[in-house]
């Protein structure tokens, strides 16, 4: 194997001001009967990235993808692919290929004909077509299924053929519309990794639409979170998870505890927040942006960063809470504890199951103490 042929030639090209975006979406808006499905979106995707557009259904992510493919024309704004303005270029002249959610294989053709279809349109010589079809079928490990019809294949196999059919054209940009949504969970997880490996091998830029945050986290080099036709945050999976820029993103990606309150004190790099949810102590949170005293803010903390214990932690003046275990969600590897505070609020804490369930030290109705580090919480102003 080509060791460490990272799918990004440069590490994190989006931080390099010299780097030219490969796909550049400039102020794209798409109106449907007066309401904007995509609303003034600006986005840069770099060569070799696996970029994931993540959002709930109806957030405009598919419309954006379809505009990249050329099936929809933007109401305003421009799309550049490899520096070329795509305005008015029909789908069949774009250096782009799409893998459809339904796979959209041609039911009247066998696997080989399906994969060769795009090359036939390019009028390549027969021998070259055969060679490239064989190569790509080998890449997706479907060489033995050449003569099968789409209906004789399983969902996962169809997905591979759809991918092969697009890859064989060697597009500059591959678009994937919920490519794994139709597969069951086990197969999906396996295919996620395969897809990433294939992407690294062929080095083609992928833009993928997904509503599954886990899928996006696993696969993407960067994620763009979309809601109401806008892109709210763009970042690496880690950035999105650890440093969400607003309440929507923090809620959408993973579970989170949210405390609303007022900034009462400012220290260097830290803010002290007083929240009605937490009676026992104030919240101390690390932040980079300045928050004025008296400002309305939210503090978000991931459940796995909330430490749960049966004994009170000494010398902690901030970020402490006392409550009663109301519920335990057992997930095998971890358990989610629902801790009810005296004022009725629930705080979630996730802990690894170090012991078997019977020996678990914390049980239902136990009185517990919660604590988290100021560095682990996120201060959100929006």
């Amino acid at each position, binding site marked *: 194997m080509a060791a460490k042929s990272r799918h990004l030639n440069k590490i994190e090209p989006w931080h390099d001001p010299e780097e030219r975006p490969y796909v550049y979406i400039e102020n794209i808006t798409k109106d449907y009967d007066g309401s904007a499905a995509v609303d003034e979106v600006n986005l840069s995707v770099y060569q070799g990235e696996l970029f994931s557009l993540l959002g709930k259904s109806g957030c405009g992510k598919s419309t954006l993808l379809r505009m990249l493919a050329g099936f929809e024309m933007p109401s305003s704004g421009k799309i550049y692919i490899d520096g070329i303005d795509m305005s008015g270029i029909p789908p069949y002249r774009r250096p782009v290929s*799409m893998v*459809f959610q339904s796979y959209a294989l*041609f039911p009247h053709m066998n696997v080989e004909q399906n994969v060769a279809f*795009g090359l036939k349109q390019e009028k390549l010589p027969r021998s070259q077509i055969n060679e490239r079809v064989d190569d790509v079928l080998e890449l997706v490990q479907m060489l033995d299924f050449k003569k099968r*019809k789409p209906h004789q294949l399983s969902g996962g196999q169809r997905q591979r053929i759809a991918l092969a059919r697009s890859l064989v054209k060697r597009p500059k940009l591959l678009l994937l519309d919920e490519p794994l949504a139709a597969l069951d969970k086990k197969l999906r997880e396996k295919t996620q990794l395969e897809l990433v490996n294939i992407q690294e091998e062929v080095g083609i830029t992928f833009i993928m639409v997904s509503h599954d945050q886990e899928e996006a986290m696993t696969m993407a080099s960067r994620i763009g979170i979309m809601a109401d036709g806008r892109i709210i945050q763009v970042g690496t999976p880690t950035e999105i998870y650890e440093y969400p820029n607003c309440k929507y993103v923090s809620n959408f990606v993973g579970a989170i505890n949210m405390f609303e309150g007022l900034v009462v004190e400012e220290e260097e790099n830290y803010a002290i927040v007083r929240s009605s949810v937490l009676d026992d102590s104030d919240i101390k949170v690390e932040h980079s942006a300045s928050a004025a005293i008296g400002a309305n803010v939210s503090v978000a903390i991931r459940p796995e960063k909330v430490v749960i214990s049966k004994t009170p932690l000494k010398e902690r003046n901030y970020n402490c809470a006392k409550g009663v275990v109301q519920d335990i969600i057992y997930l095998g590897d971890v358990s989610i504890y629902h801790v009810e505070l005296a004022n009725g609020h629930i705080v979630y804490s996730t802990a690894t199951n170090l012991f078997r369930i019977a020996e678990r030290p914390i049980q239902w109705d136990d009185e517990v103490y919660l604590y988290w580090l100021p560095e682990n919480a996120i201060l959100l102003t929006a």
Partner: protein
Amino acid sequence: MLPKKVNTWKFHFRGSSLIVGVPYFWLLVFFLCPCLILLKISFADSVLQIPPYSNILKWINDNVAQLTFNFANYRLLFTDDLYVRTFTTSVVIAANSAFACLLIGYPMAYAIVRSRPKIRMILLMLIVLPFWTSFLIRVYSWVILLAPTGLINKALMYLGIIDQPLKLMGNYCAVAIGIVYTYLPFMVLPIYSSLEKIDNSVVEAAYDLGCTPTKAFFSVILPLSMRGVATGFSLVFMPAIGEYVMPEILGDVSTVTIGRIVWSEFFTNLSWPVASALSVMMIIFVALPVTLWYGGQQSRLNKKLNIHEKV
């Protein structure tokens, strides 16, 4: 289907088999029996009585029955070249009409499928709407258009393009026009339903892979709608062969078709056996091959498109 073991269905005559049995019973009484009667008459002799044919089963005495098959009717069909000629003409007209229907009907069906849902319903209504008027009135309205003193001739003469009325009626072309006009919905509707079933993303995939709209049509849309084309073609071709009304109204004495011959044998010549023999030959030479072709076509398409029909 009825269960195969007789003794089981005798004792477990369930409601479901009763319901399934009704159409079979209907076909038996109103389709198979008339066909058998037709077959019987075709082997009879023409005689002056009511009904005007001899009985093929005769009791010679109390114990002996005699079946007489008269093949003269069939021989006549093959020896007098009028019948073979007419038969060929009818098939050619029907095939041309069905083909014309296809050329007109396919774009119509395609346009309906591509239109917005609201407009689509209206267009579909317009396709079905002519059925609400009497068939005869619709055919006669073509006389108003095509007659020597009809609208088209009058308009052309008024405009000074012609000074003698054109012979637009009383030929095979007028007959074909009538057939195309009346049977067009039977072509449009099956094609529409097969086009509607095509997943739009398959067509988009074709564009995406480099097909211009024209190429996408011929390499994806048309093959995926062949089932509708085959159904529409059979639905137009079959009844068009035996068509009687159109040649009678829009044609003249020269436009002889199989339907008219059957009619004149029956009513003018009172030769029921010859008319019956003609009908039997039509079933053998037209209905049977087309049905077999159609069945084969459908099962081939089923295999191709993976549509497993449940029986």
